[in-house]
């Protein structure tokens, strides 16, 4: 079964992504959701919203955080799928709407990792064989084989960081608004080879929300609904133990992309997709995704990075708002934030970072070791 054109996004909202020392989860949820309400013209949420889907990685009280912040006491489903949580949350919302269970639902992703008092993701060791490295270490495992096979290197990763830092300066709600140079990226302190500091996403607090409604009701909210052309999820074997993995790709992205293109009826993604938000938790993850999503052939990223294909002025702009790298990565919010950005891009409302005439937009989350990927494709017609 396909979800194509069965659900539409009629409202989008996003809090400021930052080290929000003075806001708590409630503040950010309210900020994002009330912006989405306003965007959808919703003024009576208790009458107009039928159910809530929330996604968070770090919250211990996800469902209650959301219902109490909004004082919205509705059916509430908590979604979790590592760093794909945000997209997965919207997928669950779309499925409920497509199934006819609800007319209009709220999907909200958020996280508040910056109350933990330390930088970076948590490293806890409870089991004897718990992961012997940090997330940077997991995602770095594709580097040595990929560099060896295709001749790319740290300088190509650095150019992705430079691009996303530039794009982030154009997004009002992004965390880092700082241009960097390739030399700065290459000279930064090492996190996990080949990733230096600038190859790693900025972990921040934040929340993002979308209002999803039935296709036939969409225009009762706004004249310009954004249609869900595809929203899919796929998992793959743990690459640490997968006996066949070549570490030149992340299989979950390849599988999810095939499903997404089938659902959306896309056969030439590079030509048919106008703008994309990719999961750049680390620069290499973005690089692999260009290929794993079929934008370009496997091994071709190096030349496309050098020629600027994925810059704002390029043929297929990627991470127009700065991505996880500089917009920030409150894990559960990231996938929803990407759909907020794509909604703005498709409405022509992305300001200085607007991709002209964009009609089809893709967003992509990958998480776990990595083991799970979720993709959305949104369109204007």
């Amino acid at each position, binding site marked *: 079964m396909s979800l194509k054109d069965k659900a539409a996004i009629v409202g989008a909202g996003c809090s400021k992504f930052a080290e929000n020392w003075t806001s708590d989860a409630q503040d950010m949820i309210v900020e994002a959701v009330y912006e989405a309400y306003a965007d959808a013209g919703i003024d009576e949420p208790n009458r107009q919203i039928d159910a809530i889907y929330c996604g968070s990685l770090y919250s211990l009280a996800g469902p209650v955080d959301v219902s109490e912040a909004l004082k919205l006491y509705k059916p509430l489903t908590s979604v979790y799928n590592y760093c794909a949580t945000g997209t997965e949350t919207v997928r669950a919302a779309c499925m409920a709407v497509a199934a006819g269970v609800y007319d209009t639902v709220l999907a909200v992703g958020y996280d508040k990792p910056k109350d933990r008092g330390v930088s*970076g993701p948590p*490293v806890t*060791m*409870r*089991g*004897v*064989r718990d*992961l*012997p*490295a*940090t997330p*940077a*270490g997991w995602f*770095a*495992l*594709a*580097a*040595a*084989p990929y560099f*060896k096979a295709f001749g790319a290197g740290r300088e190509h990763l650095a150019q992705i960081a430079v691009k996303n830092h530039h794009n982030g300066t154009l997004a009002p709600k992004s965390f880092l608004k700082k241009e960097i140079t390739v030399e700065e990226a290459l000279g930064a*302190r*090492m*996190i*996990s*080879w*080949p990733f230096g500091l600038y190859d790693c996403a900025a972990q921040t607090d934040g929340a993002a929300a979308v209002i999803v409604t039935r296709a036939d009701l969409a225009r009762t909210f706004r004249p310009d609904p954004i249609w869900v052309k595809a929203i899919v999820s796929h998992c793959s*074997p743990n*690459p*640490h*133990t*997968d*006996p066949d*993995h070549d*570490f030149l790709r992340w299989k979950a992205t390849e599988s999810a992309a095939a499903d997404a293109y089938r659902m959306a009826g896309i056969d030439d993604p590079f030509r048919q997709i106008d703008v994309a938000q990719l999961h750049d938790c680390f620069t290499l993850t973005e690089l692999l995704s260009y290929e794993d999503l079929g934008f370009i052939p496997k091994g071709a990223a190096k030349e496309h990075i050098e020629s600027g294909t994925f810059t704002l002025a390029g043929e297929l702009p990627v991470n127009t708002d700065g991505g996880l790298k500089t917009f920030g990565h409150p894990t559960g919010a990231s996938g929803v934030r990407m759909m907020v950005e794509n909604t703005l891009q498709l409405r022509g409302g992305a300001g200085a970072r607007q991709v002209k005439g964009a009609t089809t937009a893709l967003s992509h989350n990958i998480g776990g070791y990595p083991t799970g990927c979720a993709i959305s494709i949104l369109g204007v017609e």
Partner: protein
Amino acid sequence: MSGIAAYGVHLPIHRLPLAVLAGKNKEGGPERTVAWADEDSVTMAVEAARKALVGRDRDGIGLLVFATTTHAFAEKQGAALIAAALGLPAQVRTADVGHSLRGGAQALGAAFDAVDAGHVREALVIVSDCRMGAPGSDLERSGGDGAAAFLVTAEAPLATFIGSAQESQELVDIWRRAGDRFTHGWEERFTTSYGYLEPAVAAARSLTDRFADLDPAGWTWAASAPNARALGTFAGKMKLGEGRVRPGLYDRIGFAGAAQAPLLLAGALDEAQPGDRIAMLVHGDGAEALLFEVKSAAPAAALQPALDRRMPVRTLASYRRARDLDLSEYPAVDDQGISATIHFRERAENLRLQGQRCACGEPQFPKGRVCIRCGAKDDFTDEDFAERSGQIVTYTLDAFFPAPDPPTPVAVVQVDNGPRIYMQLADIAASEVDIDLKVRFAFRRIHQAGRRPNYFWKAVPERSLS
């Protein structure tokens, strides 16, 4: 008559030049072995035993005695843990010997007695020590870490145990109170005179008197002593001629505690010829001397390759971090640590690197219920991978992972004819890590969650285990 059928030695690869310990940036000169952050008496014991048991069936081992003054736990046996890591039969008798530098001789004595009495066919004796001298102390400079293991059998092919002599001595010369981290000592001239020389000479004389008909003048002595000068005095008092005392290796290993004389015994066996006699002398709360007669030359040297396998420690700071001598902003938390029930269920995987093989032929680690290749459920046979070799599929150097000596090399390792295992690397410089590097596996302290030592295997470069 019982004796030694095989033996093995493990020295930590890290060598701390005494100049570096003194804060100088200088290479060369005297050095000591240092157990790194992921090593302790248990891990060194397992490695020494694996070397002693290379190519041997382990099912005949009926007794394991582990001697050390540096047990990882004050309450909880080391020998049972080592037996599990070595995959010894569950029926094996296990015993720890502790508290005294003399423990190695006591462990060997127990093994000879058990085999001679016919209670067990084969006994494994492991002596391992990594004592800590307080920062700046003589003991920190003069100490060393290492382990030696001996397989004891009846009619052993390498060396026959002839007999022993003991001298018990009560004095407070060297001690560690319950709960202390560092060894304390009384004034050195007193401890050398009465803690070492007096009982050592008494035990040695009792052995030469007892076996006077076995040409004591021709024996080789593998003798412990707290330092090189004391060893020289012992040789003088015993009137031992040139070459009769094995060099103490104080400038290469340091004084390796209970393992000192066993390491020297291994070195003596390395070079012995049939008919040679070797006396091992240990001291601590008295002294003990054991006499062996060599039956055949050892098939391969054990001590020299261990001495040759070395990585110098470059900075005092890295030594201090490895030995946890500095205060930390985030010290290990004294909580429940890892789940004991999870560890209990996974002990074969954690301690023996045991995975499984599906009937379809697909190997798998960790164990699961469903085959990743054919999808069959519960059609597996257990298989141990610890003694296999493998090669690096991919890697990273994780500088963000909390470790005493970052970056931490981490790799996906393809086990030869086995599964892939995601694990840390040890005993390797970051610049040496590369795709296709050949590795073997070493038993290590993987972390200290709950301020307990938690053990798993790491990959080490194959060359380092030659």
